[in-house]
């Protein structure tokens, strides 16, 4: 009974650590979140201790990451605050190549002596592993960037906003949901600030200040007489933004089909709580779907997760090559398919791009965790598989000589490796609204927000549900339905793409918790798209009588 213990704590919604995020670091006062931390000149001097020690011990390459990771979480349910947590984690991770083999060690003792010892340990790990290492490490060239900095373009640092304001906002959302028919509601706010300093023997000293925010809602409506209950998740998304994301801005709202209101770069959590309460109640009496083939109109906060699972993961080069075989799995998108130059991942409407520079996204940084300047590149162009996601020691395996810049570690304490960049579906070129997606559908379903999701270990077969599901008949939304989940195959699904809304409907879905590796690490990633239609997809009925 180990694997999900911490999730159980979260499900209970009570107790001191009611967090779905493993809480890392020491607890601090909220005021301390604003302390500047170690100054850049000192960080450079500390990083140089690591680099010089590594060089002196024969390393052919070394990098040092000094990280200060700040988190603030606020948890509420109904009319009470369950917990507020502020944490700080600070230390240095040192990675080296010695005897042609990677070595890594980390320490929270960020002093010349502590760093020297950790570097020596990293070298000794590399030398020990070199005895059983059989693959040569070839690093793609990277230019030294000198001393530079990058910061998430935020308007308001969420850490500067008093905790009491955050509590008041969440309790207001809860109160309004309860007034509008919710039986229970949990809401939370997760704030992250990664202050990362990277230095390498290639001549880079990069100081980055990364901000992320995630407001969540879970609204429950119950019919006691029948024993039925329904949950409706919030329609906000985690974003690479400051507190401005949860300041309502009508200009950032999008009117979806039916009575659904959707959000782009500003989330009105109170309005969504009110709408969510009404919708959760409506679900209690909605009819059950009839299984069969449907045209699916997928809203971006829903389709984003399908992109994540069916495009983001299978195009990670380490999965393709077998490095993740024992955990997340391998990939159907094998090298021969890419080499053929004519593998139809989707039809000609489908253009999927990787982008570590996209404004407001969770994956946006200036430089990755091995000092490569971030960029945007094609994965699927006009339906054809054209590239993967790869880092410095991988790109030579696909005959390229420039890293894609998607190396990441969740903290100073973990070694960096290839992680999924933001992967997004380009909006359609023709002007289409959400109504244009629906009006010529005879028999269809409109799915909104994140629901159930599952995909196989090579990313062929998947099943997804939404948090809101509506029936479309003869070009119109006719009402809410229950028990609908669609099952498809990745290549078949992307080849059934029929129509994509234009850029005016484009927005991002995101996840704070993309998991990978053993020991596991999490990474935050966004997926953008516009509302998109897929024709003739198999829908099953998931209702059961017990």
């Amino acid at each position: 009974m180990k694997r999900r213990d911490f999730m159980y704590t979260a499900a209970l919604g009570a107790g001191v650590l009611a967090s779905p995020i493993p809480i890392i670091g020491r607890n601090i006062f909220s005021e301390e979140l604003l302390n500047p931390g170690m100054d850049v000149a000192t960080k450079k001097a500390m990083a140089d201790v690591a680099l010089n020690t590594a060089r002196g011990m024969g390393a052919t390459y070394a990098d040092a990451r000094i990280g200060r990771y700040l988190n603030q979480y606020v948890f509420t349910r109904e009319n009470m605050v369950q917990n507020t947590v502020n944490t700080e984690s600070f230390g240095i991770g040192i990675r080296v190549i010695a005897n042609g083999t990677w070595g890594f060690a980390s320490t929270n003792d960020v002093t010349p002596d502590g760093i020297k010892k950790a570097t020596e340990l990293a070298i000794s790990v590399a030398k020990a592993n070199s005895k059983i290492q059989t693959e040569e490490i070839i690093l793609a060239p990277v230019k030294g960037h000198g001393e530079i900095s990058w910061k998430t373009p935020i308007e308001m640092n969420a850490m500067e906003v008093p905790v009491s304001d955050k509590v008041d906002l969440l309790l207001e959302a809860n109160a309004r949901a309860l007034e509008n028919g919710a039986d229970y509601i949990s809401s939370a706010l997760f704030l992250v600030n990664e202050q990362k300093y990277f230095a390498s023997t290639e001549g880079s000293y990069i100081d980055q200040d990364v901000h992320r925010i995630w407001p969540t809602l879970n609204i429950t409506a119950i019919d006691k007489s029948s024993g039925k209950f329904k949950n409706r998740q919030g329609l906000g998304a985690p974003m690479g933004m400051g507190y401005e994301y949860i300041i309502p801005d009508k200009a950032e709202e999008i009117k979806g089909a039916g009575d659904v209101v959707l959000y782009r770069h500003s989330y009105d959590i109170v309005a969504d709580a009110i709408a969510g309460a009404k919708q959760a109640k409506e679900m209690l009496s909605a009819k059950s779907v009839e299984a069969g083939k449907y045209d699916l109109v997928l809203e971006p906060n829903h389709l984003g997760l399908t992109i994540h699972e069916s495009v983001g993961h299978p195009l990670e080069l380490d999965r393709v090559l077998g490095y993740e075989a024992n955990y997340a799995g391998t990939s159907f998108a094998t090298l021969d398919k890419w080499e053929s130059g004519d593998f139809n991942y989707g039809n000609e409407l489908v253009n999927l791009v990787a982008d570590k520079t996209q404004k407001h996204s969770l994956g946006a940084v200036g430089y990755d965790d091995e000092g490569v300047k971030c960029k945007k590149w094609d994965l699927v162009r006009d339906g054809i598989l054209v590239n993967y996601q790869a880092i410095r020691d991988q790109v030579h395996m696909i005959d390229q000589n420039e890293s894609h810049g998607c190396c990441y570690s969740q903290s100073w304490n973990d070694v960096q490796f290839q992680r999924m960049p933001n992967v997004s579906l380009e909006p359609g070129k023709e002007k289409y609204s959400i109504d244009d997606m629906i009006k010529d559908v005879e028999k269809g379903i409109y799915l909104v927000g994140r629901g159930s999701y599952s995909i196989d270990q090579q990313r062929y077969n998947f099943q997804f549900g939404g948090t809101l599901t509506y029936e479309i008949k003869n070009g119109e939304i006719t009402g809410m339905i229950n028990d609908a989940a669609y099952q498809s195959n990745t290549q078949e699904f992307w080849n059934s793409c029929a129509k994509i809304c234009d850029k005016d409907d484009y927005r991002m879905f995101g996840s704070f918790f993309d998991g990978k590796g053993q020991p596991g690490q999490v990474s935050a990633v966004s997926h953008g798209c516009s509302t998109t239609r897929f024709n003739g997809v198999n829908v099953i009925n998931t209702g059961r009588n017990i």
Partner: protein
Amino acid sequence: MSIYTKEEAQEIINRALKFSSADGCEINLSGNISGNIRYARNTVSTAGVNSNQNMTVQSNFGKKVGVATIDEFDDKSLEKVVKRSEELARLSPESPEFMEPLGPQTYAESKTHIQKTADITPDFRAQVAAASIDPAKKNDITAAGFFDDSSGFNAMANSNGLFAYNKNTDMNFTVTMRTNDGTGSGWSTRDYNDVSMFDPAEASMIAIDKALMSKEAKAIEPGKYTVILEPAASIGLLQNMFFSFNARSADEGRSFMAKEGGGNKLGEKIVDERVTLYTDPFHEKVPTATWTSGGIPRKKMMWLEDGVVKNLAYSRYWAKEKGVEPIPFPSNGIMVGGDASLEDLIKDTRRGILVTRLWYIRSVDPQTLLYTGLTRDGTFYIENGKIKHPIKNFRFNESPIIMLNNLETLGQQVRIDGNLIPYMKIRDFTFTSLSDAV
């Protein structure tokens, strides 16, 4: 860092408690040393050793609670962390569900620490990897695996005189073996408190055999099939079912355990009468700590007996609200099995499917505990008592409640992920689509 003895831990915590001036103070002290090795493509990819130690101090003034942590235990640091938790408590809003620290409790000694596991070296980990990679290479197979081990302690004390201590070791191993033509894949896992029970070559050979046996799988139609679920296949669904044994969400009307018209399903028969499931921290094969993180003693506890719900977990707060004794959430799951071996179960099956494991299990409907996921790494068609041929993987949509109502036969128990679960033969298990994944 050190794995502190009971006496050392008590001395450190007592020094910290002396600095407390709050209404209540509860201190948890823990330390852990862990090591791991990861391999893929028949070579080692990463290896590491991590250690950490941590003290968490929770102070309360009435229902205002503050928590602070520290990893240094000299007097100055201890005073600082206690005072910090008190300052945070004074600034916090009231926590309506806060419960006062428990008074002194009596705990039995646990059986969770085995010195041999605590003594695992980097060389041993490298040998584990080699014991997988060498036979893989000989069989034209590529091995990918992960071995990790840990040794640690937890201690807890509070201002009401409670003190608890436990030492623990464990190890986990998983390996995936894939044939080099990409058409076969096998997997196995082992977990123990005592590493001397672990044979990496034996576990690796099972995965190799499954990989070779699963080459060139045939597609059969999805539908309802009799299945033999290895414990690694059923555990994911059973764990998800265990997590619904929560009185509060049931009483609130939002779980499978909620009853039509209000209340919960305590005392109701929900699955086949041969299903008996309990927790026992003293079980020789799956020992756990004898107290919870809140200091409640753990004891043997029945959850399902003869198919009837015997207990639900009550937090201290919810127990007080409902006027009952708190019942901690299960630390391990032990499901009563039968005598049949896996071979016996196959021999007695006319038509069926042997499932090695289920993967990517996610909730579809919390109302009925419906889950979806896929078979992986060894799925075989059985006909007339024999494994006939490998089959392509399936997606399932199934509820553990329906699964345990459709029980045909219980087999022998196997330790899996800290639990003891039998092989099970189940009729009418619902597969809804085919997957091309190997």
